[in-house]
């Protein structure tokens, strides 16, 4: 037990299992009171149950803090408002917001239904917006707040999850923007990009898929071992907990790769190769001129997915 967050109050979404639960318990261990928010649905967002959130509440209370459950969907603006208000009304204020709730509907782009797009974007991206939108006025007023969002390495491109990746890319940009807007009020916004064994990343279906990749030669056995050798979320929970503490006052607008074995700071994308024309002497670009400067612009670039050779 420790008391780095003693007297602080936190809202954690997706708190019923996996990373959200591990973070809730970690915050509670440091003395924070917890609003454990979880719809209690499946990985695909279907169904609902109060027991995951209730279970987290009991475990938090066993650590000597106050805890209360909230069962709404983060994708619902009003339900998100209720989560934040629960914290303020029961505990007096909201100091910490950790957005972890997420679902997955994996499909290739050309097979993705509109519904699969909408629900994944709603839970991750709009859910993150919803809770921040409702927490921001309180945090700004009290000139203190810690927001920790959750993204994924799918943020930088992935196959089979373009809805999930796009939502995570949106959350990364939302984190940057929130950091810029709220920073001067003593509120920080950061994101973690976790690697952990959860029902989403290491459930039986996922493992079966990985094995198929090895069997078909897409992956080496080493790649399989690397991907599946992942600690549980309790190993990394101290990273968002640190970001939620007073000690992290000057850490703002950052994205941290977070795993049991390591954590890393992800620098944002930047202009890595630049071609400037003669400022005083130019007309509109021509296609030929653009083509001529491409080799320099593309130095070091590797095509992530070149066209397949024609099958004979």
């Amino acid at each position, binding site marked *: 037990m420790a008391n780095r967050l003693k007297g602080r109050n936190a809202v954690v979404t997706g708190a019923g299992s996996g990373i959200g639960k591990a973070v809730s318990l970690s915050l509670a261990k440091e003395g924070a009171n917890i609003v454990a928010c979880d719809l209690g649905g499946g990985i695909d967002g279907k169904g609902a149950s109060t027991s995951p959130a209730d279970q987290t509440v009991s475990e938090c209370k066993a650590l000597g803090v106050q805890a209360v459950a909230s069962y709404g969907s983060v994708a619902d603006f009003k339900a998100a408002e209720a989560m934040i208000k629960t914290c303020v009304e029961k505990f007096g204020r909201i100091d910490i917001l950790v957005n972890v709730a997420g679902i997955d509907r994996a499909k*290739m*782009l*050309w097979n*993705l239904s*509109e519904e699969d*797009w909408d629900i994944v*974007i709603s839970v991750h*991206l*709009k859910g993150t917006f919803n809770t921040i939108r409702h927490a921001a006025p309180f945090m700004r007023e009290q000139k203190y707040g810690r927001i920790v969002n959750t993204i994924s390495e*799918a*943020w*930088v491109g992935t*196959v089979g999850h*373009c*809805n999930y990746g*796009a939502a995570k*890319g*949106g959350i990364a*940009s939302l984190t*940057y*923007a929130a*950091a*810029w*807007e709220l*920073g001067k*009020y*003593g509120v920080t916004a950061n994101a973690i990009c976790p690697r952990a064994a959860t029902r989403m990343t290491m459930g039986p279906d996922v493992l079966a898929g990985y094995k198929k990749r090895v069997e078909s030669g897409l992956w080496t056995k080493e790649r399989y071992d690397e991907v599946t050798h992942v600690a549980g979320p309790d*190993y990394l*929970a*101290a*990273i968002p907990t*640190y970001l939620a*503490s007073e*000690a*992290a006052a*000057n850490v703002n607008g950052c994205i941290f790769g977070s795993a049991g074995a*390591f*954590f*890393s*700071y*992800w620098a*944002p*994308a*930047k*202009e*890595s190769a*630049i*071609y400037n024309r003669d400022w005083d002497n*130019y007309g*509109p670009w*021509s296609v030929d001129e*653009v*083509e001529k400067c*491409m080799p320099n*612009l593309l130095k070091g670039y590797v*095509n*992530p*997915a*070149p*066209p397949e050779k024609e099958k004979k």
Partner: protein
Amino acid sequence: MGDKLKGRNAVVTGAGRGIGRAIAIGLAEEGANVVVCDIGGAVDGSGGDKTPADQVVDECKKHGVKAMAQYGDVSKFADAEASVKACVDNFGRIDILCNIAGIDKPKMIWNMTEQEWDQVVGVHMKGTFNFMRCAAPFMREQKFGRIINTTSEAWLGGVTHLNYGAAKGGIVTLTWGGAQELGPAGITVNAICPRAKTRMTDDPKVREMVVKRVEKGLMDASVLKRMDKEMVDPSAFAKIAAFLASDDAALVNGQVFLTTAITIARYSKPEPVTTAENASEGPWNMDMIKAAFTPDKILKGYVNPAPPAPPKPEVKK
């Protein structure tokens, strides 16, 4: 004019005005047939008018290509489907897709309404998804396609545009992911990050502010000069998109390019630049993390974009 896109068929969203219009005409100048999609609304997404799309259709036709208008709402899946189908049904196939339609509803996060969020994310991000989703099956089948999305520097942070920035970040990832999924089928997916004078960006107050800062010595005069060179009609860089849409750009895939009248830059992807290892057998603990969070370790090179404001001095009553 050129013939780099002769016989190709393109769908361009937001094609009634600004960057979309410039690119639609830029593609037509290179010989592409164009489906000009524009709802004809205001910058904030309100209203609708067929005139902007109709006018661009006329201008495209002047270059000897076929052109037709679509007036649907890109944020509606069925409307996007209809626009892609219009291209296939009227011109035979769809080779090029340029997603440019966008709106802006600027607010600080604590003032933003749910509707302002939904509409901006709906038009930019879902609009881009809708068109990619509907075009992808045709492009995969024919093993050729060029998709060009539009992002913004707001993708990397900023104030008063959290909805816009988040949508643009989502579009960048959709570009990276789309490139990985569609690349093997001979389809490229890239994005432009444009700077140009359009009705969305043309704000004399911004220039005034820069002039003042240059006068006070807070900003280098080259910033103002660059701004003046870049805040010009987007037709200046329309051919950057035309290049990306051409056969010659077959191997340019999954890239984001800053595009202006005077500059092209390629963006790197975000990447881990500093790492701390957990040397223990157990989970991370707070002390281990705190020890790594120093300016010479994990935060090397990091600058806080908005540090806490110093407390205001107390006013004596």
